[in-house]
């Protein structure tokens, strides 16, 4: 055995001098440490686990927005007037965008902006999101994607498309880039069309895929489709015709309103100048205005039938009663009312046919102001029409207690009160619907309506006869005649008010009529504002538009002609022989 071998176990040097309690103490401390951990673990996982649960959730649960589709706007035949389609919008992340001048220049060009404008949008490097251009064309988005610029992305957004364009622009209106209605029906029915967005909580995995739903989903509530009473064909035709009339008469503007007498539905409501709702750069107020509802004017001679109707109703006259017009001048107090011609003795029928101011005034002066005021109010003058349009005006009819006799006389031929073209159209339903004023609707109803009775059925028929006389030889509006259908109506021509008085050479010509006159289906009102090409009488500028609109509208409604027409059919179909 070697001398170097040592008996360690018995070496006194290695004999432990540590007391036993020290090792016991260490074990106890470690055990206490473990116990502490167990207690903490129990506390965190069982007793107060909300905080960590929440933290866990935050790290992998995402709340997704489920956008609601905006409802479509349809015409009465289900044709689309407005619908939302997804389009790409381009956004950038200024923090990590690749600033390659050549690529950015190409991008700016595709976005239709200058490089300086683009740089300005991207200058704030603290931002992580900035819209570069919203709602671009699909092809542009593809070209941008092809540039492969890091930090430039696209995202789907919804854009409103208006396939009918200008002709229905004022009715439908438009939405802004946030899909909120700004004008027309889009504005009025914004809430119903917009729907309600939903949400969904999900767990996403590392690749961004949805792997699990958490909690309940709130489904999106899509906006409702809105079906209007407008017939896009009638609307288009009316728009084309008023456009032609405005251009050929070198006028400032024009409007047409077409009402279905049986249902009270608005078949067309159009104005020129208009705009394309999809392209709204450089819009002027003149283009935006829905003149048929927002512009009021003195209704002129179109008021006479209402006053005469009241005279019949009160039993003051019959259609065949005569009234002395004399030499065409009639003094009321210090003022003089004049007619264009010295007609002498006229029947009531002729007062309307020839549009005699004196005849209407003489009748008005036999009536109580209150009665006249009441009829005006009943037919809707001075009242805001019940149509869901922003900016519809009420016009003005002053309180009857303040009327002086001369005012009562001038009101009988339409001066001293104001109304919109739409109000006039509605007022004329009183003649067309057998003495009842029909409530109008912009939404499709297709139900016959009953209105508020103003005149008796017999007097309404007598008035229709007078209105028919206006459009035949000897009346003021033979140009309102239309092939195949007997029509009736009344012309109006009013000096435009400028400042405190009447402008000497600015006129407004209009025509409100009914067709077919014996069994009325439609009321058409036409207004041409400031015609400057010579003709300015309603019978010359507005009546032809009425004639063409009636012709096409009745044809589209399938109303058979009630007048014999000389056929111009070039070939006759021969019966086939066997």
């Amino acid at each position, binding site marked *: 055995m070697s001398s170097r071998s040592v008996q360690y176990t018995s070496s006194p040097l290695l004999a432990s001098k540590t007391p036993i309690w020290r090792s016991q103490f260490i074990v106890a401390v470690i055990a206490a440490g473990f116990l502490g951990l167990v207690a903490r673990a129990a506390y965190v996982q069982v007793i107060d686990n909300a905080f960590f649960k929440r933290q866990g959730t935050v790290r992998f649960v995402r709340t997704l927005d489920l956008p609601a589709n905006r409802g*479509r706007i349809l015409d009465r035949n289900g044709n689309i007037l407005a*619908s939302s389609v997804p389009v790409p919008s381009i956004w950038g992340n200024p923090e990590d965008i690749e600033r390659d001048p050549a690529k950015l220049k190409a991008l700016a060009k595709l976005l239709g902006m200058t490089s300086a404008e683009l740089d300005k949008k991207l200058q704030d490097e603290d931002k992580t999101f900035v819209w570069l251009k919203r709602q671009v064309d699909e092809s542009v988005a593809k070209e941008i994607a092809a540039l492969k610029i890091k930090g430039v992305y696209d995202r789907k957004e919804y854009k409103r498309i208006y396939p009918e364009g200008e002709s229905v622009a004022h009715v439908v209106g438009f939405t802004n880039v946030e899909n909120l209605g700004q004008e027309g029906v889009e504005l009025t029915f914004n809430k119903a069309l917009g729907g309600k967005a939903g949400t969904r909580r999900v767990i996403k995995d590392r690749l961004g895929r949805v*792997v699990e739903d958490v909690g309940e989903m709130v489904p999106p509530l899509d906006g409702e489709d809105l079906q209007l009473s407008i017939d896009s064909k009638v609307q288009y035709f009316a728009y084309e015709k008023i456009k032609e009339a405005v251009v050929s008469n070198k006028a400032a503007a024009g409007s047409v309103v077409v009402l279905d007498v049986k249902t009270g539905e608005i078949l067309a409501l159009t104005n020129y100048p208009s705009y394309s709702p999809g392209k709204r750069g450089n819009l002027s107020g003149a283009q935006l205005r829905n003149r048929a509802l927002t512009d009021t004017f003195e209704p002129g001679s179109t008021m006479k039938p209402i006053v005469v109707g009241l005279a019949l109703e009160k039993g003051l006259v019959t259609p065949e009663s005569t009234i002395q017009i004399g030499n065409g001048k009639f003094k009321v107090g210090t003022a003089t009312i004049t007619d264009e011609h010295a007609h002498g003795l006229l029947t009531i029928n002729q007062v309307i046919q020839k549009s005699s101011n004196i005849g209407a005034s003489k009748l008005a002066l036999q009536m109580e102001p209150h009665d006249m005021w009441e009829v005006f109010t009943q037919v809707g003058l001075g009242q805001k029409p019940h149509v869901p349009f922003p900016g519809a005006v009420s016009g003005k009819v002053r309180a009857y207690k303040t009327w002086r006799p001369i005012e009562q006389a001038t009101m009988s031929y339409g001066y001293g009160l104001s109304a919109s073209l739409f109000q006039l159209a509605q007022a004329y339903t009183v003649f067309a619907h057998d003495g009842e004023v029909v409530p109008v609707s912009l939404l499709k109803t297709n139900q016959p309506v009953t209105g508020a009775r103003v005149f008796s059925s017999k007097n309404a028929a007598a008035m229709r006869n007078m209105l028919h006389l206006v459009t035949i030889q000897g009346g003021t509006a033979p140009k309102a005649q239309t092939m195949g259908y007997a029509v009736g109506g009344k012309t109006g021509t009013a000096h435009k008010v400028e400042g405190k008085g009447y402008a000497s050479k600015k006129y407004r010509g209009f025509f409100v009529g009914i067709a077919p006159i014996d069994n009325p289906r439609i009321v058409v009102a036409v207004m041409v504002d400031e015609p400057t090409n010579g003709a300015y009488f309603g019978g010359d500028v507005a009546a032809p538009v009425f004639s063409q609109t009636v012709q096409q509208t009745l044809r589209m409604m399938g109303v058979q002609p009630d007048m*014999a027409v000389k056929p111009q059919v070039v070939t006759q179909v021969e019966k086939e022989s066997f």
Partner: protein
Amino acid sequence: MSRVSFLLMIAVMASALYLVRTQYESRSLTTEIDRATSLARNLETENDRLDVERRAQATPLRVEKLAREQLHMRTITPAITQYATVSGGAVASAPAEVRP
């Protein structure tokens, strides 16, 4: 006793593994559903877009322009229309003249 415990432990393990597998399957199915739903939605919006496009091709403005220019048609009037009246279910012969 220990044999029973062992068997139970095996059962627990198997059940746990099965749970993991089911969870995995459920998640991949959810992903699948999600993909299908978004595809359905895309197709729906595509359908809407095509509807609008179709309508844009058939607006009265375009139809009239094409009819007038390419087909040399003109607007009809009652003078060049023959009205056929339906009587007793059969269409009566069209009169040469237009009568009410």
